[in-house]
């Protein structure tokens, strides 16, 4: 191992990166673009569900009920239908997600003290929006029903107390239930996984494909020196990206930062080492850049996007998938980031996650060093 040779290798890699200005720009801007899209556009707190109403009763009572739908943020009345065919057409067309149909004789039924049924048709092809929309509709109808009951009892000189049970929720760690607060830490992991592994997954394959590997082999540079020299520049880029993301998260999106910088830095370094080594390994195994890039996609983007608990909660996945996530560095990293940003849990509580990351980093680095051989096939 010679520091001079490592530095020479690094210089070569840096020149290659610098020559490609546009890529470098994209690499530094991409995290911000991602952060902005996720911070602003991705909102699982579903509001403004497009609603179609069909009032077969057309009385004061039925209009009262429909006004309650109009008054909330949760629904947007996009169409007032006057026949059933239009309702069906709108749902098929995707014009509305929910349609509320008030049956004829609605007010009459209520006046005589009966049970009136209001129909809600839902486009449940998006099951999540549908079940949330259904919940909103249910709540509105239930409130209306209580109001009707109250009036009915009052007219008979009876009093009804306040609702028997109310819940007083206190939300911890993300008090206002802001989606961006819990997405933004996840985006950091996603961007780092993609950038880290994608860039390095092509570095060795590129040398083989262009034939410059032969030149490298003829120099005295050792295989460990090649690896270090190739990975360090990308490591610096990765750390810069993390810093940009974290800065934007805290100062622009006002995501709280409650944990310690040390844990964040430690986790980021370990995670970066893992994804860079993984990319390097893929590059050695994949041989051609095409193969390498497709494997990198599978090995980094997918787990970081899907299996890290970033959007989809891990504890809702089937058992086998849950076991797979235990092998993935992204899972531990996202959990560390969530803790550092939102929970601010003490360092001891993070020790397990950090240790898991360290073990994975060690294994992957060892593996990537062992598979690369400095000789022609």
């Amino acid at each position, binding site marked *: 191992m010679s520091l001079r040779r490592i530095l020479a290798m690094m210089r070569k890699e840096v020149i290659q990166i610098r020559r490609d200005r546009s890529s470098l720009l994209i690499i530094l801007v991409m995290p911000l673009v991602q952060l902005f899209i*996720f911070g602003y556009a*991705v909102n699982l707190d579903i509001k403004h569900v497009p609603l179609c109403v069909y009032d077969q009763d057309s009385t004061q009572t039925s209009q009262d009920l429909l006004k309650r739908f109009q008054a909330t943020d949760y629904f947007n009345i996009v169409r007032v239908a006057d026949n059933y065919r239009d309702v069906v057409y709108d749902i098929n067309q995707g014009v509305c997600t929910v349609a509320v149909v008030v049956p004829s004789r609605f007010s009459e039924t209520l006046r005589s003290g009966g049970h009136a049924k209001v129909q809600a048709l839902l486009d449940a092809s998006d099951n999540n929006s*549908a079940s949330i929309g259904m919940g909103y509709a249910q709540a509105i109808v239930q409130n209306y029903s209580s109001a009707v009951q109250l009036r009915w009892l009052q007219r008979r000189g009876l009093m009804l107390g306040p609702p028997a049970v*109310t819940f007083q929720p206190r939300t*911890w*760690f993300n008090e206002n239930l802001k989606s961006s607060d819990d997405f933004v830490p996840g985006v950091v992991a996603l961007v780092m996984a993609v950038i880290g592994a994608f*860039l390095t997954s092509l570095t060795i394959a590129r040398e083989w494909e262009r034939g410059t590997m032969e030149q490298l082999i003829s120099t005295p540079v050792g295989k460990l020196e090649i690896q270090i020299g190739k990975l360090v520049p990308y490591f610096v880029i990765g750390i810069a990206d993390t810093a940009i993301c974290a800065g934007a998260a805290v100062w622009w999106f006002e995501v709280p930062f409650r944990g310690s910088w040390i844990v964040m830095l430690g986790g980021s370094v370990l995670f970066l080492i893992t994804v860079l080594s993984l990319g390097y390994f893929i590059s050695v195994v994949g041989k051609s850049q095409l193969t390498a890039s*497709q494997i990198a996609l599978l090995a980094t983007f997918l787990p970081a996007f899907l299996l890290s608990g970033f959007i989809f909660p891990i504890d809702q996945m089937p058992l086998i998938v849950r076991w797979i996530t235990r092998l993935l560095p992204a899972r531990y990293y996202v959990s560390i980031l969530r803790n550092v940003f939102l929970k601010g849990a003490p360092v001891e509580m993070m020790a397990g996650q950090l240790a898991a990351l360290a073990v994975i980093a060690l294994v992957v680095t060892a593996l990537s060093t062992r598979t690369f051989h400095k000789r022609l096939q």
Partner: protein
Amino acid sequence: MRLRRALARIGQMLRKEFIQTLRDPHTRLVLIIPPIIQMVIFGYAATLEVRHVPLAVLDLDHTQESRDLISRFSASQYFDLKEEASQPDQISRGIERGDFLMALRINSGFAQRLRNGQGAVVQVIVDASNSNTALVGLGYLNQIGARFAQDYEANRMERTAPQLASFLPQVQLEARPWFNENLNSQWFFVPGVIGNLMLIMVMTLTAFAVVREREIGTLEQIMVTPIRRWEFIAGKTVPFFLIGCFDTALLALIGSFWFGVPFRGHVTVLMLGAMTFLLSALGLGLLISTFSATQQQAMVVAFFFILPAVTLSGFGTPIASMPRFFQHLSYLNPLTYVILILRSVYLKGVGLEVLWPSILYLAAFSLLMLAVAVLRFRKSLD
């Protein structure tokens, strides 16, 4: 005559391209295995359903009523009762550790207030570090609470004024979820995954294929042959179009037979949508190749496009709840339309009468992309 010669040249180009792509056993596998793995993992992992929320309760009242309320939670499939705590700090520490996501605290006097008709308050602590789970969980909580209150009131009225109870007016909501009656999450995500994978595969493959020639220097060799530019491009893209069709069919079969997503529409509508979309992805890939000198660059540019495209497609979150500006962006995105087509054909079973605008948009988009790519390609060679 000229046309025949042109076709012959394209044929040669096609042969070269197929040989080059399928020669390497690695590449052959790469074209088939990753989409399948991604499809299966996506299908299982992508769910926003919230079930079995780990829950702790602290019952300081110890009455019939408080136990009745708790039993409603333990009986529900939405909650898993993990711990019955006896000390307040047990629940706060458990939440910090992440042992459970929600905790109920029923203070003493709960039953007393209920009986007096004063209304009782139950304190709830929610771990909101995943805001979706927290929101949905709170929804379930309120549903259970409302049901409990209703039953309690009905019970009391039954006892005090039975003649009134049977005449109490009531409004009920009768919800009928169409197209996905059991609100199955896989039915929603699987068609979307097909669209995503089509985009990622075809776009990166096309971009790489062209840039590789440039990077290795074989593009110059091709350009000294009598082949014309559009013939070159046709020869380059047709193999990936066919591979894209093959993969799409494979993914569609996995969707139907492995995940059991119903297929209610017409295969021809799906094919029309898929083919116009594949052409759009091809056009985008070609366009990227004109911007890139190296494959690494192509990869970076492709992902610069893919990540926002996936987020702004209605794949995971409804477009209707995005801010206006992002809604406009979403409606420029070809992925939005193919996901719409896939979901409509699979789940809704609607046909061209509803989907023609989407297919038309995709056709126009692909033409535009291909045209721009061909024009820019000419330039980039000079």
